[in-house]
C-alpha cells in the first residue's frame, strides 16, 4: 500500500433539500421525487433503485405535486401556479401551462392517465386533458372557498375527492357538482381548532381515507358521509398517505418522523369481514415525513431531513437477499465536488453558487491513523454566484486549477481563475 494523506474536508456546508413529494409510476418501475428546492429526481426500481435522472431546480419554481400520466410523462405543479411537463430525455422543463387558480397545492392523474385534476389556492378543482404535446384545459369543477390541499381520483374515474381545511368534498366528474361534503372536524370536542386534511385517498370500494392535522387516519363512507373507522396514530399531524395498488395496505407519514403501515386484515380466519389494522411503526426519519409512496414490494418515505427510505415488505420477498435490505438515501447521489489535483483545490457545487477552496497542508509525517498538525489552514478562495434563476446542474475545475466551469439547464459558463500572490481574480471567458 502506498502512503496517503487523508484530508478531512469539513468545510463543505451543503444543506440538502428535503423531499417534498413522491410519485410512483403506475404499473411502472420508476419513482419520481421532488425536493423542496424544486429539483426533480427519477429512480428506477428495476435497476436497484438507481438514481436515473436529475432535473435541477429553479428559483421561481417549487414543486408541490408530481404525477405520472399517459404512460411515462411526468407532470409537476407548484405554488407558482403552473403545471409543468418534464422532458425526461433532455432533463429540463418541456413546457408549462398556467393553471389560472393561484398556487397549486395538489394534482392527481386519473386511472387511465388521460386527465389531470389540480387543486388550487382559491378552492377550485380544474380538469386538464392530457393531449400529445401538452395539456389542455377542460373544465372547472364546483368551486368553494378554502384551498384544496389534496386530491384523489376514484379508480373508476367517475369521482374526485378533495381534502380542504375542516372538510372534504366529493365531486362527480361528469356533472362537475359537489355530491358530498363531509366535515372532518366534527369529532373534536375541545376548543375549535382548524383541522387540516393533509392527504386523501379514494379506494375502489368507495371508502375515502384521510389523514389530518390531529394525528388521525380516518376511513369514510363517501356515499353516506359517515365515519367508518378512526385511528389516532400520533399526537402530531399525519402529513402523507399512500395506498398500495391492491388496496390492502396503506402507509402514512407523520410530522414526528414516524411512518405507520395499515393493513386490511380479515377479522376471522376465512371470513369476509375485513378491517384496517395499524400494524408496523417505523422510525427512520428525524423530521416531518412529507411524502410517502407504496410500491408493490416496499414502503417508500421521504422527509424534510432529505432522506429517502425504502423499506421492503418482508412478506412480499421470496428470499433474503439484497432486495430485502432496507435502503436509505441520505446524501445526494451526484458529483457535487470536483478536485484540481495538481493545484490542490476543491470546487464545491451548491444549488446557486460555487465555492473554491485550497486544501490545507502539512510538512510533517506520521504513522497510520495519526492526526497531523496543519501548517497551513484550508483557505476559501472564491465564491462564484450563478446568474439567473436556474440552479446549477454540474460544475468542474481543471486539474491545474485555473479553469472553472458550470452549467445550468440552458447555459454554460467558463471562468478563468488567476492567482496573484494571496489575491485571486476571476475572469469570465
Amino acid at each position: 500500500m502506498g502512503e496517503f494523506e487523508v484530508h478531512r474536508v469539513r468545510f463543505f456546508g451543503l444543506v440538502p433539500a428535503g423531499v417534498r413529494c413522491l410519485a410512483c409510476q403506475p404499473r411502472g418501475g420508476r419513482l419520481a421525487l421532488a425536493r423542496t428546492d424544486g429539483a426533480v429526481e427519477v429512480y428506477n426500481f428495476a435497476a436497484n433503485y438507481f438514481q436515473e435522472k436529475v432535473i435541477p431546480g429553479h428559483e421561481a419554481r417549487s414543486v408541490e405535486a408530481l404525477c405520472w400520466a399517459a404512460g411515462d410523462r411526468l407532470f409537476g405543479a407548484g405554488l407558482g401556479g403552473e403545471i409543468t411537463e418534464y422532458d425526461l430525455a433532455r432533463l429540463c422543463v418541456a413546457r408549462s401551462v398556467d393553471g389560472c387558480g393561484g398556487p397549486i397545492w395538489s394534482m392527481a392523474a386519473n386511472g387511465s392517465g388521460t386527465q389531470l385534476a389540480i387543486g388550487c389556492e382559491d378552492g377550485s378543482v380544474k380538469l386538464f386533458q392530457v393531449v400529445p404535446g401538452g395539456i389542455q384545459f377542460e373544465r372547472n369543477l364546483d368551486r368553494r372557498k378554502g384551498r384544496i390541499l389534496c386530491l384523489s381520483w376514484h379508480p373508476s374515474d367517475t369521482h374526485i375527492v378533495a381534502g380542504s381545511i375542516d372538510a372534504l368534498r366529493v365531486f362527480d366528474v361528469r356533472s362537475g357538482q359537489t355530491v358530498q361534503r363531509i366535515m372532518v372536524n366534527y369529532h373534536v370536542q375541545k376548543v375549535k381548532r382548524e383541522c387540516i386534511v393533509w392527504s386523501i385517498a379514494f379506494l375502489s370500494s368507495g371508502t375515502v381515507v384521510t389523514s389530518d392535522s390531529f394525528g388521525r387516519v380516518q376511513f369514510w363512507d363517501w356515499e353516506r358521509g359517515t365515519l367508518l373507522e378512526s385511528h389516532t396514530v400520533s399526537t402530531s399531524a399525519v402529513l402523507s398517505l399512500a395506498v398500495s395498488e391492491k388496496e390492502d395496505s396503506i402507509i402514512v407519514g407523520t410530522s414526528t418522523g414516524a411512518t405507520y403501515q395499515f393493513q386490511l386484515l380479515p377479522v376471522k380466519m376465512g371470513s369476509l369481514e375485513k378491517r384496517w389494522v395499524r400494524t408496523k411503526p417505523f422510525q427512520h426519519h428525524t423530521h416531518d415525513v412529507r411524502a410517502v409512496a407504496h410500491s408493490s414490494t416496499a414502503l417508500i418515505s421521504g422527509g424534510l431531513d432529505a432522506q429517502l427510505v425504502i423499506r421492503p415488505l418482508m412478506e412480499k420477498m421470496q428470499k433474503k437477499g439484497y432486495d430485502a435490505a432496507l435502503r436509505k438515501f441520505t446524501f445526494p447521489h451526484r458529483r457535487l465536488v470536483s478536485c484540481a489535483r495538481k493545484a490542490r483545490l476543491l470546487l464545491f457545487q451548491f444549488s446557486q453558487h460555487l465555492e473554491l477552496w485550497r486544501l490545507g497542508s502539512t510538512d510533517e509525517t506520521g504513522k497510520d491513523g495519526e492526526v497531523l498538525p496543519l501548517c497551513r489552514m484550508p483557505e476559501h478562495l472564491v465564491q462564484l454566484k450563478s446568474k439567473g434563476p436556474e440552479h446549477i446542474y454540474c460544475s468542474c475545475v481543471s486539474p491545474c486549477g485555473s479553469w472553472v466551469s458550470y452549467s445550468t439547464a440552458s447555459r454554460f459558463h467558463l471562468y478563468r481563475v488567476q492567482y496573484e500572490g494571496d489575491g485571486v481574480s476571476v475572469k469570465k471567458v
Partner: protein
Amino acid sequence: MVAPATLRVVRCGGSTLHGARAVFSADSYLLCASGDFVKMYSVATEETLRVMGGHADLVTGIQLNPHNHMQLYSSSVDGTIKLWDFMDGIPIKTFTVGSKLLALYALASSEDSVFVVIPKSGERDTFQLVSVKLTKAAGQDLEAKELSVVLDGVDASPKHIAFGREGEYVASVKEVNLQVYFFKQKQLNRFSVSAMKTKSGNNHFTCIACHPVEDCIATGHADGKIRLWRNFYHKKEYTFSTLHWHHDTVMDLAFSIEGTSLLSGGVESVLVLWHNESDCQKDFLPRLGSAIEYISMSSDGALCCTLHTDNRITIINSNLRFSKSIQGLIKSTDVKTGLVVDPRTKALVLNGEPGHLQFYCLQSDQQLFSLDIVQRQYIHQAGLNQADLVKVAFSAQGKWLATVEEREEVTDPELQLKLWFYDEETQSFKLNTRINMPHDDHITDMCFRDMDELEDDSLILVTAGRDCVFKVWMMVEDTDPEAQQSVSWSCDFVGSYHNYQATNCCFSEDGSLLAVSFEETVTVWDSVTWDLKCTFCHPPGKIRNICFGRLTCSKYLIGATDYGFLCCWNLLSCALEWSAHLNVLVLQPDPLSEHIAAVSWLSKESSLFVFKPNEPRPIYIQRNLCKEKIQLAAFVPRDEPEMIGSEKYLWLRRSQLFFLTDTQELMTLSTKSLEERLTPSSKQLAVEESLPVTPFSLLLGKHRRQQLQEDIDLGKLVRSKHEQDSPAVKELLHTPAHVLPSASFLCPIFINSLLISKDNKSAEEVADEVEMESEKTEDDSDEERDVTEMEHEDTSPMELLGEMTHKLSKSQEKELRKIRKMDYSWVSAF
C-alpha cells in the same frame, strides 16, 4: 376425616394466591387458587365464604365447567383434577391423571375433555399441553388416562398458553417463540421475535391472551412491550403491531369480553386499559399497591380482578374504578418485624406493604388496616435501597407503639426510631417522637416494660443495638409550651457489657428485671437502678433468643444458643437449672400461661416443643410440623378459653399458637376439624345475600311481619325468633333448586310453616331436629334481630302494652326488652 382428639396443623392465611388466574362465577363470587385450597370470596362483601380443600399439593388451575357454571374444575400438582360444586363446597368427582398438572384450561367447544400442561416424561424441564378425556362413568374417584398431546415444548406457566376464539386455535409462547395450532386444520404455525437483547431488556414472551371474537393474539414481553398479532394463519404474511407503555415486564394481559379493550399489568402496579388496540388511547389505574400478577375478567364484563404479588386481590369496575380489595395476609418481601400481637385488637402485626405495618385479623382472615410508618413514596425499581420497617413493639395495653426503620446501606445505615401514641379519637396511631440514629448500628431488639398495673409515665422502652450498647428510653414531660403534646421520649440510660454486641433484650413479667444478651452472655439488670445484677453464660454459641418465664415460673430465664442448646437458668440461685440439646429457631412464651413454645429445625423439618420452664421435660412434642422452615411464631390470646378435652393440649386453652413459614404462610394448631373451623355465620351469609329480592320474598317478609303483629296482639310473647326463620322455609330457600325434592313433597311442609300454629308444640316437634342445628347459627345474628324488633316496638307501643299510655322511659324499655329475651316456652306447656 381426622379424629377430633389429635392436633392438626392448619393453614389459616397468607397462602400464595399465585397458582392461577382468579375466576368469577356467574353469580358474583370470586374463586381463587390459594395454596392447596380453592377459596371462594364474595365480590359484594369481600368475605371468604368457603375454603375448598382436598388437593394434596398446590392448586395450579381453576376453571368453571363450561357446561355447568355452578361447577368448577381445579387441577393440582398432586396429579388430580377435581370437579367441585362450589356453592356447596362439595367435591363431585376426582379424576386422577397421574403426572403433575401445571395448568388447566377448559373449553366450551370440547365436550368432555379439558386441557392440562404436564411435564414430558423422560425429559426434564420440557412440558406439553395435552387434552384429558374426562370419563363420564359413575363414582367419585375416576381415572383419566386418555391423554392426547396437543402441543409440545410449551412453558409451564399458565400465562403462556391461551385458547383463541371459540376454541379454534391454541397459542403458546416460550422464550422468543410463539406457536399457534389450529385444531380444525391441524396446522401449526411458528413465529419468533428476534432474540436480540436491547437496552431495555430482552424481548422474551411473558404472557399471552387471545381476542374473544377476532383472530388476534396479544403477547406481553419482558421489555414491557405488548404485541398484537394478526393474520397468523399465514406463515409469511403475519403481521403485528406494538403497544408500549410498561417500563418493565408485562406480567399479564386480558381482553375485555367484547374484545374492544385490552388490560395489561406489570410491576409498576398500574393497570393499563388500551382502547381499540390503539397506542394513543389508553387509561390508567395507578397505585394498586404492588405488582400485578394475574388479571381476569368476569363473564359479564362488569368487573375485572387483579391478583398481586403480595397476595392481595383487587376488584375493579369496568370503567376502571377501584371497587374493592380483598386482602388477607399481605406478603412482604421480608418479615423483619416478627409476629407481634396488638394487645388492643388482638390482631397480628407485621410488615405489610413496603414501609407499612399491617394489622391482620386472624378471625376474619382480613387486613384490619395498614399503618404507614416510613411515610415515603415507594419506588418500584430493582437494586434501589429504600427505608423499611425492621422492628416493632407494643406497650402492654397497646397505647404506645415503637417502630424502627432503617435503610439498607452497608457502610452507614440510616436509622429512625419512632414512637406512636394511640389516639382514641381518631382510633389510630399518631406519631409522638421521632429519634434519628438512636444507635450507631442496626437495632437488634426492642421491648417495652410490660406492666399492667403501673401508670403510664413509668413506661420504659429498651433497644439493643449492634453498636454494643443497649439504651433505655423514658417518657418525659415536654417543657416547651408551644409543643402540641405533653410528653415525649428521650434516652435515660446507656448500658454496655465488655464491648460485645447486644443481641436480645427482655423484661421479666413484673418488670423489675431486664435481661440483655451480649453475644455469648446474658446479663440481668435491675430496671430501677440499672445495676448489673448477674450474668449467665453457656458456651459455646451466641445467644439467639431469651425470655423470662411467667406466672409460677417467673424465676426462670430461658435462652437458646446458636449451637443448639436450650438453657434454663434459675434467677434466685443464679445457676443453670437444666439445659437441652435442641436447635431452636423460635422461642415464644405464652403471655397468659407458663408455657413456652420452641420450634426447632432439624433435617429439613420443623418440630414444635412446648414446655414449662420448671421442668426439663416437654409437655407436648409435634414432630414434622411442616416441611417449610418456620420463621416466626406468636401466641394469640383467645377471646374466651376454649374447652379442650385432652390433658395434652391444655396449653392451647388460653391462647392459640400461630407460625409464619419462610414462604409466608400462616399456620396454626387446631384441635377441631376443618368443617368445624369454618364459621357457620359465613355459610349463612353466602346464602342470604345470594337471595334475590323477588316478589315472593317480599310477600314472605310481609307475612312474617303480620304474623309478628298478630302475636303481639294476642299478647303472647312468643319466641318470634324461631318463627321468623322457620327452618322449613329456610331449608326450602337455601337449598339449590336442582337438589330439591318435588314440589308436591315440599308443599305441605311449606304450608305448615306458614300456619300460625295453635298447637305450637306439635309443629315444633316436627321441625325440632332441624331447629337444633340452626340454633347455633342464629346466635350470631341475634343482635341484628334485636334491632329489628326494637323498631317494631317503636311503631306499635300501644298494642304491645295495652293500658300503658305514657311514653316509656329508657330504663323501662330496657327492662322490657330483657323480659322479651327470656325464654317463655314453658308457658306454652300449660
